[in-house]
């Protein structure tokens, strides 16, 4: 078996008296869509913060693309190919859609240094052409010059994805991409993620079970800081412990 793209080993984290994560072992294979689900307060967001580098674990390690990234900061993990989108829309609301994505392109190491003090950034056509292509991929071709704050909520979520894509990630870490979207918008988002999944590995954290079971190749279930089950959607649906955790609500 080839080595997993993301390999989290024995990750533990305590906040005061709460064991937020207890010896979590979790892996994402290259090419798959791996969904992480769990009831509210299970530790999903804490887990994501440890994967992205926003938080450091008490013990355990995070390996990504064959190297130990446990000690790397968030921006260093982006440089090795990990990109994340946020649960709460987190784009530059005062900038156009194009400027938002151009910033993401500019941040990539292969795009050259940003310690440039003289040449107007707007004259760098290659950067903006590339940014445009990500907007096209995420269905925002018509909204290129729109100020992000004027985009519809679903469009802002798509912009968030375009920015993550522009970092040319090996793995996309999507933190509740459907959060707050209406039924139509979330259907479009599912299509978009399906489309992206052909090119990039995805770790998806999501509450919308219909979307999760449609998109995921594998699903892991986190309850009270412990990973209780990992398997195909069918395995997970049939797992008695998962059924108990969710009291059968969603499955």
């Amino acid at each position, binding site marked *: 078996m080839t080595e997993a793209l993301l390999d989290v080993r024995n990750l533990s984290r305590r906040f005061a008296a709460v064991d937020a994560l207890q010896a979590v072992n979790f892996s994402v294979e290259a090419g798959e869509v791996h969904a992480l689900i769990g009831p509210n307060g299970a530790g999903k967001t804490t887990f994501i913060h440890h994967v992205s580098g926003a938080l450091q674990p008490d013990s355990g390690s995070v390996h990504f693309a064959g190297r130990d990234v446990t000690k790397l900061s968030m921006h260093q993990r982006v440089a090795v190919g990990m990109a994340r989108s946020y649960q709460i829309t987190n784009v530059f609301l005062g900038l156009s859609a194009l400027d938002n994505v151009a*910033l993401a392109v*500019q941040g990539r190491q292969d795009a050259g240094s*940003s310690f440039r*003090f003289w040449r107007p*950034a707007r004259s760098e056509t290659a950067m903006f052409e590339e940014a445009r292509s990500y907007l096209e991929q995420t269905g925002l071709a018509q909204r290129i010059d729109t100020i992000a704050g004027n985009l519809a909520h679903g469009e802002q979520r798509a912009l968030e994805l375009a920015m993550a894509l522009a970092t040319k990630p090996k793995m996309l870490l999507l933190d509740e991409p459907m959060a707050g979207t209406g039924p139509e918008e979330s259907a479009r988002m599912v299509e978009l993620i399906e489309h992206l999944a052909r090119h990039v590995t995805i770790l998806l954290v999501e509450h919308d079970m219909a979307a999760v079971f449609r998109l995921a190749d594998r699903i892991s279930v986190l309850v009270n800081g412990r990973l209780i089950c990992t398997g195909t959607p069918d395995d997970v649906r049939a797992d008695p412990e998962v059924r108990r955790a969710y009291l059968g609500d969603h499955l």
Partner: protein
Amino acid sequence: MAFYRPATYQKPVVLALLLALLALPPALTAFGQEFYIGFATRVLIFALAASSLNLVLGFGGMFSLGHAAFFGAGAYAAAICMSSGIADALLAFPLAMAAAGLLALVVGAISLRTRGVYFIMITLAFAQMAYYLFVSARSWGGDDGLPLASRMMLGGFSLTSDSALFYATLGCLALVMVFFGRLADARFGRVIQAIRENETRMEALGYPVFRYRLICFALGGALAGLAGALLANLTGLASPNLLQWTQSGTLLVMVIIGGVGYLYGGVVGAVILLMLEESLVGVTEHWHIALGLLLLGVVLFAPKGVAALFGKRHD
């Protein structure tokens, strides 16, 4: 908030003002008002200092209450250069910028690990430490300050006459403003403005946020050092009062009155504040009351600063 972009009318207005300023010394001389050449130089120097703070505060989003430390360090560096025989501004000014920039690099490297109120307090603390260091440094004049034996040379030209120093200052300010304008529109400027808006997002896009902030902070410090070196030439003294926290406060008030994050915010603020002081200080010693009223007026009726009244910061 969008990225800075110059308004279309800005260039002609700035060019016209520049021409008017070029004609100022002979005009003042013709009317027998040579005294005001020195005053105008002072305004330009503070315009430069306030602009350097505007780079840090308005573009970099770093609320520093210790900017005077770099201003004062530049003045002392110039005075020390002078007393050790370096009388050419072509060498002394870059040295003053390097000294102030280095100091800012050290202060920034520590302070920028904190945020919010802590950042304000720690920059203030560093500035006060620098102030007391210079006050107690006997060899640099203690609390009397370090006088300059004469004004410097600039290449082959002497800065002894008020007009010469005025033109040298105007040249420095013009160069700095051109650089500032280019920087704001270049990659670096976009990065620091985006960090001001949302540093976590920038970190998640792969930017080493700390490094960009630090460079911006040090750059602002170096430019303040240049202003300090010019001021030492104007007044013939590097005084510890230049490093006082009240001086940092004055620069902050200038930027806030002028327009935080507007390219010419620092310049506009310095002009307004110093003109107000100059015109009222002869009338009443309580001129600070007028300053307070002005600040109130700005905050209530032009919260983005006076520069904001003349056009939008962005397209």
